[in-house]
């Protein structure tokens, strides 16, 4: 433990510039501001959820420079210069992304709290592996907890989306 406690106003803000869903933003942030707070509170992109305090649940998953990360455990300053994709960035021209359509079609959610994170982990999986096996899908969403569905319909939805994206 350190001895000197700092008050927030004693700490200089840091200028950051990053792209979120293809749009560039320049902001001054407190060093301790988490990426998830930046997205939700600064940019009002509230699709990304916070489900825990322990970096366990994955509800806050976004892509940072193409890789899935828990945005509750990344500082906004660490994302400086980066490219972020959130659940709001999945739809194109008012059309649901095939993953979103498949989650809806296959009832891949109940309360929906985990869904944004599930979608982003599934998106990251399909980017690397367009035809995942059931086991690979399980591994792909290993960092996302769902308290409602029992996962079965989530697997179905991801499989269906993968097939749709391969245009089968």
């Amino acid at each position: 433990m350190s001895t000197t406690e700092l008050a927030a106003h004693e700490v200089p803000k840091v200028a950051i510039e990053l792209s979120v869903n293809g749009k560039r933003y320049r902001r001054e942030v407190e060093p301790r501001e988490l990426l998830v707070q930046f997205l939700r509170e600064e940019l009002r992109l509230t699709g990304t959820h916070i489900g825990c305090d322990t970096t366990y649940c994955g509800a806050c998953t976004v892509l940072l420079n193409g890789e899935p990360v828990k945005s509750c455990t990344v500082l906004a300053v660490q994302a400086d210069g980066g490219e972020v994709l959130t659940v709001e960035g999945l739809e194109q021209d008012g059309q649901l992304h095939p993953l979103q359509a498949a989650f809806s079609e296959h009832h891949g959610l109940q309360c929906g709290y985990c869904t944004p994170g599930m979608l982003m982990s599934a998106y990251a999986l399909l980017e690397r592996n367009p035809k995942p096996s059931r086991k690979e899908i399980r591994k792909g969403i290993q960092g996302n907890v769902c308290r409602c569905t029992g996962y079965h319909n989530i697997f179905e939805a991801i499989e269906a989306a993968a097939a749709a994206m391969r245009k089968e």
Partner: protein
Amino acid sequence: MYPAPFRYHRAESVAEAIGMLSELGEGARALAGGQSLLVLLKIRFDEPTDLVDLARIPGLDAIEQRDGEVRIGALATHARIARSEIAAAIPIVRDCANGIADNQVRSRGTIGGNLCSGDPSCDWPALLTTLDAQVHCEGPAGKRSLPVDGFVEDLYATALQEGEIVTGVSFALPGPGSAGAYVGFKRCAPAYPTTSVGVQLTLSGADCVDARIALGSSGLTPIHATAAEAELRGQTLGEAVIRRAAEAAVAASDPIDDQRGSPAFKRRLIDTLVRRGIDVARRRCAGEQVEVSHEYY
């Protein structure tokens, strides 16, 4: 909860990082992937005055193999190591890199941060002990290299001096007839292992020429199970020899009672994992392709 306020500094070179950490003193912490540190800051377990971000230092994330030696930069993430040619060539490295946490944590967490956390539940210290690795450090007093065995000195305490950072690790490329396995058991993907075991064998037929065994999450530091190795070295691998090695590993362990299990449960697990590690290492020595990683429910 959110971290208490701190100042943020971005180091552009190793020298600058060492300078910043030395100057800022006791209240400063290095920041790599943040997957251990930010978790602690969020629950206010630690309230540093300053964070020195190492993540943009060029070249510190290289993964390379040269003259029979593998060198991994401190900033290499678990995910990049798992996808590297080194992991393809040395399955025990892949076992460990893929077994750590989940996809998201592996995207950010680094091998250097994993070592420097001094967390007995971390996997790289045990894996690197199994491979007899060196830790390369740089600080105000210059560069030095230390054996990884003993680098984690106590719970959350490492051999690093003030202002000193880890720049990378290195180990000898396992030779012909040598192969290993890293096996762990955890309650779910995002959890730390209940216990984990690394085994590296050098065999000539069924005869064990050399063995290294290390245990993670089995005490307050990673444990180099030398007595278990001695049970295997020079022996023909049979049931009785393997049983004695597993017993010696269990005897060397000192598991704590926590939410992951009782010491008695963990000892049973260590016994099983040592046997499994030996089995997989032996099959890999014989050229068989075996996929293992941390198991969970």
